[in-house]
Protein backbone atom coordinates (compact mmCIF):
# COMPACT_ATOMS: atom_id res chain seq x y z
CA UNK A 1 0.00 0.00 0.00
CA UNK A 2 1.59 3.31 -1.03
CA UNK A 3 2.46 5.64 1.80
CA UNK A 4 0.17 8.64 2.19
CA UNK A 5 1.66 11.50 0.24
CA UNK A 6 0.64 14.83 1.65
CA UNK A 7 2.67 16.52 -1.02
CA UNK A 8 0.57 15.04 -3.82
CA UNK A 9 -2.65 15.69 -1.93
CA UNK A 10 -1.77 19.37 -1.62
CA UNK A 11 -0.68 19.63 -5.24
CA UNK A 12 -4.04 18.21 -6.29
CA UNK A 13 -5.89 20.69 -4.05
CA UNK A 14 -3.86 23.58 -5.48
CA UNK A 15 -4.77 22.61 -9.05
CA UNK A 16 -8.44 22.58 -8.04
CA UNK A 17 -8.22 26.05 -6.53
CA UNK A 18 -6.47 27.62 -9.56
CA UNK A 19 -9.46 26.82 -11.73
CA UNK A 20 -11.74 28.85 -9.47
CA UNK A 21 -9.72 32.01 -9.09
CA UNK A 22 -12.18 34.50 -7.68
CA UNK A 23 -10.01 37.45 -8.65
CA UNK A 24 -9.88 36.77 -12.41
CA UNK A 25 -13.66 36.90 -12.93
CA UNK A 26 -14.01 40.33 -11.35
CA UNK A 27 -11.29 41.92 -13.44
CA UNK A 28 -13.25 41.43 -16.67
CA UNK A 29 -16.14 43.70 -15.69
CA UNK A 30 -14.52 46.41 -13.58
CA UNK A 31 -11.30 48.36 -13.40
CA UNK A 32 -8.60 46.09 -12.03
CA UNK A 33 -8.33 46.69 -8.27
CA UNK A 34 -4.96 47.52 -6.75
CA UNK A 35 -2.96 44.69 -5.22
CA UNK A 36 -3.44 46.24 -1.83
CA UNK A 37 -7.22 46.24 -2.30
CA UNK A 38 -7.18 42.65 -3.53
CA UNK A 39 -5.24 41.54 -0.49
CA UNK A 40 -7.52 43.43 1.89
CA UNK A 41 -10.60 41.86 0.31
CA UNK A 42 -9.07 38.41 0.29
CA UNK A 43 -8.01 38.63 3.93
CA UNK A 44 -11.40 39.93 4.96
CA UNK A 45 -13.03 36.93 3.30
CA UNK A 46 -10.74 34.62 5.26
CA UNK A 47 -11.80 36.31 8.50
CA UNK A 48 -15.47 36.19 7.46
CA UNK A 49 -15.24 32.48 6.65
CA UNK A 50 -13.77 31.76 10.05
CA UNK A 51 -10.43 30.62 8.61
CA UNK A 52 -8.65 33.31 10.58
CA UNK A 53 -9.36 34.80 13.99
CA UNK A 54 -8.11 37.83 15.92
CA UNK A 55 -4.85 36.07 16.80
CA UNK A 56 -3.84 36.48 13.15
CA UNK A 57 -4.21 40.23 13.62
CA UNK A 58 -1.55 39.92 16.33
CA UNK A 59 0.74 38.25 13.81
CA UNK A 60 0.12 41.01 11.24
CA UNK A 61 0.88 43.67 13.82
CA UNK A 62 4.36 42.21 14.33
CA UNK A 63 5.30 42.92 10.71
CA UNK A 64 6.95 46.30 10.21
CA UNK A 65 9.79 47.99 8.35
CA UNK A 66 12.36 46.09 10.45
CA UNK A 67 10.62 42.76 9.86
CA UNK A 68 8.98 43.23 6.47
CA UNK A 69 8.43 39.55 5.81
CA UNK A 70 7.32 38.33 9.24
CA UNK A 71 3.85 37.11 8.28
CA UNK A 72 5.20 35.14 5.35
CA UNK A 73 8.00 33.67 7.49
CA UNK A 74 5.79 32.53 10.33
CA UNK A 75 3.06 31.14 8.04
CA UNK A 76 5.71 29.27 6.04
CA UNK A 77 7.18 27.89 9.27
CA UNK A 78 3.71 26.83 10.37
CA UNK A 79 2.98 25.09 7.05
CA UNK A 80 6.28 23.20 6.97
CA UNK A 81 5.85 22.07 10.57
CA UNK A 82 2.20 21.10 10.01
CA UNK A 83 2.93 19.04 6.91
CA UNK A 84 5.60 17.12 8.76
CA UNK A 85 3.20 16.49 11.64
CA UNK A 86 0.31 15.41 9.39
CA UNK A 87 2.59 12.90 7.67
CA UNK A 88 3.56 11.49 11.08
CA UNK A 89 -0.06 11.46 12.23
CA UNK A 90 -0.94 9.18 9.33
CA UNK A 91 1.28 6.55 10.87
CA UNK A 92 -0.98 6.66 13.93
CA UNK A 93 1.88 6.84 16.36
CA UNK A 94 1.76 9.51 19.11
CA UNK A 95 -1.39 10.88 17.46
CA UNK A 96 -2.55 12.46 20.70
CA UNK A 97 0.62 14.45 21.38
CA UNK A 98 0.80 15.61 17.76
CA UNK A 99 -2.83 16.75 17.97
CA UNK A 100 -2.01 18.75 21.11
CA UNK A 101 0.98 20.33 19.41
CA UNK A 102 -0.91 21.22 16.26
CA UNK A 103 -3.78 22.70 18.30
CA UNK A 104 -1.19 24.94 19.90
CA UNK A 105 0.47 26.17 16.75
CA UNK A 106 -2.76 26.71 14.81
CA UNK A 107 -4.09 28.64 17.79
CA UNK A 108 -0.93 30.79 17.93
CA UNK A 109 -1.14 31.68 14.27
CA UNK A 110 -4.87 32.39 14.30
CA UNK A 111 -5.92 29.52 12.03
CA UNK A 112 -9.31 29.16 13.72
CA UNK A 113 -10.96 26.41 11.71
CA UNK A 114 -7.83 24.34 11.75
CA UNK A 115 -7.60 24.71 15.50
CA UNK A 116 -11.21 23.52 15.90
CA UNK A 117 -10.47 20.50 13.70
CA UNK A 118 -7.39 19.69 15.81
CA UNK A 119 -9.48 19.85 18.99
CA UNK A 120 -11.90 17.31 17.46
CA UNK A 121 -8.99 15.09 16.52
CA UNK A 122 -7.59 15.25 20.00
CA UNK A 123 -10.97 14.31 21.50
CA UNK A 124 -11.28 11.37 19.10
CA UNK A 125 -7.81 10.25 20.09
CA UNK A 126 -8.57 10.64 23.83
CA UNK A 127 -11.69 8.50 23.31
CA UNK A 128 -9.55 5.97 21.41
CA UNK A 129 -12.04 5.75 18.57
CA UNK A 130 -10.11 4.79 15.45
CA UNK A 131 -13.04 5.55 13.16
CA UNK A 132 -13.48 9.04 14.55
CA UNK A 133 -9.73 9.58 14.44
CA UNK A 134 -9.71 8.77 10.73
CA UNK A 135 -12.60 11.16 10.09
CA UNK A 136 -11.11 13.89 12.26
CA UNK A 137 -7.67 13.52 10.67
CA UNK A 138 -9.20 13.82 7.23
CA UNK A 139 -11.25 16.88 8.23
CA UNK A 140 -8.20 18.52 9.80
CA UNK A 141 -6.07 17.83 6.73
CA UNK A 142 -8.72 19.45 4.54
CA UNK A 143 -8.82 22.52 6.76
CA UNK A 144 -5.04 22.74 6.58
CA UNK A 145 -5.08 22.50 2.77
CA UNK A 146 -7.72 25.21 2.57
CA UNK A 147 -5.63 27.47 4.82
CA UNK A 148 -2.45 26.76 2.88
CA UNK A 149 -4.06 27.30 -0.52
CA UNK A 150 -5.54 30.63 0.54
CA UNK A 151 -2.14 31.79 1.72
CA UNK A 152 -0.51 30.55 -1.44
CA UNK A 153 -2.88 32.77 -3.43
CA UNK A 154 -2.24 35.68 -1.09
CA UNK A 155 1.54 35.36 -1.32
CA UNK A 156 1.37 35.51 -5.08
CA UNK A 157 0.14 39.07 -4.73
CA UNK A 158 2.52 41.65 -3.29
CA UNK A 159 3.36 40.31 0.18
CA UNK A 160 4.32 43.75 1.42
CA UNK A 161 0.65 44.57 1.97
CA UNK A 162 -0.21 41.70 4.29
CA UNK A 163 0.93 43.60 7.37
CA UNK A 164 -1.40 45.34 9.80
CA UNK A 165 -3.85 47.84 8.40
CA UNK A 166 -5.21 50.36 10.88
CA UNK A 167 -8.68 50.17 9.34
CA UNK A 168 -8.87 46.41 9.44
CA UNK A 169 -10.99 44.86 12.15
Amino acid sequence: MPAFSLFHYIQFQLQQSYSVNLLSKRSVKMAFPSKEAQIKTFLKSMFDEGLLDCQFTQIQALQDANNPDFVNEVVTLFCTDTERIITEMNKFIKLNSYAVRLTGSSSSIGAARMKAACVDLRRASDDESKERCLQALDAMTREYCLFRNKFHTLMQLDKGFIGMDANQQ
Partner: protein
Amino acid sequence: MEVTSCSSKPHVLAVDDNLVDRKLVEMLLKKSSCKVTTAENGLRALEYLGLADEQENALESNESKVSMVITDYCMPGMSGYELLKKIKESSATKEVPVVVVSSENIPTRINKCLEEGAQMFMLKPLKASDVQKLTCHLVN
Protein backbone atom coordinates in the same frame (compact mmCIF):
# COMPACT_ATOMS: atom_id res chain seq x y z
CA MET B 1 18.40 50.80 13.82
CA GLU B 2 20.90 51.52 16.56
CA VAL B 3 22.33 48.80 18.73
CA THR B 4 21.89 49.65 22.39
CA SER B 5 24.19 48.21 25.04
CA CYS B 6 23.22 44.86 26.50
CA SER B 7 22.67 46.19 30.00
CA SER B 8 19.89 48.60 29.00
CA LYS B 9 17.59 45.97 27.48
CA PRO B 10 16.05 43.22 29.56
CA HIS B 11 17.24 39.80 28.48
CA VAL B 12 14.54 37.15 28.33
CA LEU B 13 15.01 33.42 27.88
CA ALA B 14 12.00 31.91 26.07
CA VAL B 15 11.55 28.14 26.22
CA ASP B 16 9.11 26.26 23.97
CA ASP B 17 9.33 23.05 21.92
CA ASN B 18 6.92 24.43 19.31
CA LEU B 19 8.70 26.31 16.47
CA VAL B 20 5.78 28.58 15.63
CA ASP B 21 5.29 29.57 19.28
CA ARG B 22 9.02 30.22 19.66
CA LYS B 23 9.05 32.53 16.68
CA LEU B 24 5.97 34.35 17.93
CA VAL B 25 7.21 34.87 21.49
CA GLU B 26 10.62 35.98 20.18
CA MET B 27 9.06 38.66 17.99
CA LEU B 28 6.62 39.77 20.70
CA LEU B 29 9.52 40.21 23.13
CA LYS B 30 11.69 42.04 20.59
CA LYS B 31 8.82 44.44 19.96
CA SER B 32 8.76 45.06 23.71
CA SER B 33 12.42 46.06 23.49
CA CYS B 34 13.87 42.92 24.99
CA LYS B 35 16.91 40.96 24.03
CA VAL B 36 15.73 37.39 23.44
CA THR B 37 17.36 33.97 23.63
CA THR B 38 15.21 30.97 22.74
CA ALA B 39 15.57 27.36 23.84
CA GLU B 40 13.68 24.39 22.44
CA ASN B 41 13.53 22.38 25.65
CA GLY B 42 14.15 22.49 29.39
CA LEU B 43 17.57 20.92 29.18
CA ARG B 44 18.86 23.55 26.73
CA ALA B 45 17.41 26.23 28.97
CA LEU B 46 19.25 24.85 32.01
CA GLU B 47 22.48 24.68 30.01
CA TYR B 48 22.08 28.30 29.00
CA LEU B 49 21.46 29.31 32.60
CA GLY B 50 24.47 27.30 33.71
CA LEU B 51 22.37 24.95 35.81
CA ALA B 52 22.90 21.70 33.92
CA ASP B 53 24.48 18.89 35.98
CA GLU B 54 27.96 19.17 34.53
CA GLN B 55 28.20 22.95 34.90
CA GLU B 56 29.74 24.28 38.09
CA ASN B 57 29.49 28.01 38.04
CA ALA B 58 26.20 29.46 36.78
CA LEU B 59 27.41 33.04 36.44
CA GLU B 60 30.22 32.24 34.06
CA SER B 61 28.03 30.42 31.58
CA ASN B 62 25.94 33.13 29.96
CA GLU B 63 26.99 36.34 28.29
CA SER B 64 24.44 38.71 29.71
CA LYS B 65 22.35 37.97 32.75
CA VAL B 66 18.83 36.69 32.14
CA SER B 67 16.16 39.01 33.60
CA MET B 68 13.22 36.67 33.05
CA VAL B 69 12.36 33.20 31.81
CA ILE B 70 9.16 32.46 29.88
CA THR B 71 8.46 28.78 29.52
CA ASP B 72 5.76 26.63 27.99
CA TYR B 73 4.24 24.15 30.42
CA CYS B 74 3.81 21.15 28.09
CA MET B 75 7.14 20.08 26.69
CA PRO B 76 8.50 16.62 25.97
CA GLY B 77 11.11 15.46 28.47
CA MET B 78 11.35 18.16 31.12
CA SER B 79 8.09 20.06 31.57
CA GLY B 80 7.91 23.80 32.20
CA TYR B 81 6.97 23.00 35.80
CA GLU B 82 10.11 20.91 36.29
CA LEU B 83 12.20 23.67 34.73
CA LEU B 84 10.59 26.20 37.08
CA LYS B 85 11.51 24.02 40.06
CA LYS B 86 15.14 23.71 39.00
CA ILE B 87 15.44 27.46 38.47
CA LYS B 88 13.96 28.18 41.91
CA GLU B 89 16.14 25.54 43.61
CA SER B 90 19.40 27.17 42.55
CA SER B 91 20.74 30.09 44.56
CA ALA B 92 22.18 31.58 41.37
CA THR B 93 18.80 31.84 39.63
CA LYS B 94 16.06 31.68 42.29
CA GLU B 95 15.41 35.44 42.03
CA VAL B 96 14.85 35.29 38.26
CA PRO B 97 11.13 35.68 37.55
CA VAL B 98 9.68 32.69 35.70
CA VAL B 99 6.48 32.96 33.73
CA VAL B 100 4.71 29.76 32.72
CA VAL B 101 2.49 29.71 29.64
CA SER B 102 0.04 27.05 28.56
CA SER B 103 -2.71 26.55 26.02
CA GLU B 104 -4.80 24.77 28.67
CA ASN B 105 -6.65 26.49 31.48
CA ILE B 106 -6.32 23.94 34.29
CA PRO B 107 -6.62 25.47 37.81
CA THR B 108 -4.61 22.71 39.56
CA ARG B 109 -1.81 23.24 37.04
CA ILE B 110 -1.90 27.00 37.56
CA ASN B 111 -1.85 26.69 41.36
CA LYS B 112 0.98 24.19 41.25
CA CYS B 113 3.14 26.61 39.27
CA LEU B 114 2.31 29.63 41.39
CA GLU B 115 3.05 27.66 44.56
CA GLU B 116 6.41 26.69 43.16
CA GLY B 117 7.24 30.36 42.70
CA ALA B 118 6.13 31.23 39.17
CA GLN B 119 5.75 34.98 38.72
CA MET B 120 2.73 34.51 36.53
CA PHE B 121 0.81 31.92 34.58
CA MET B 122 -0.50 32.97 31.17
CA LEU B 123 -2.71 31.38 28.59
CA LYS B 124 -1.71 30.89 24.98
CA PRO B 125 -1.92 32.18 22.37
CA LEU B 126 0.23 35.07 23.56
CA LYS B 127 -0.70 38.58 22.51
CA ALA B 128 1.26 41.82 22.49
CA SER B 129 -0.66 43.10 25.53
CA ASP B 130 0.31 39.97 27.53
CA VAL B 131 3.99 40.46 26.81
CA GLN B 132 3.83 44.18 27.57
CA LYS B 133 2.37 43.33 30.98
CA LEU B 134 5.30 41.05 31.69
CA THR B 135 8.09 43.26 30.45
CA CYS B 136 7.03 46.67 31.73
CA HIS B 137 8.29 45.64 35.20
CA LEU B 138 11.68 44.65 33.82
CA VAL B 139 12.76 47.96 32.36
CA ASN B 140 14.83 49.71 35.03
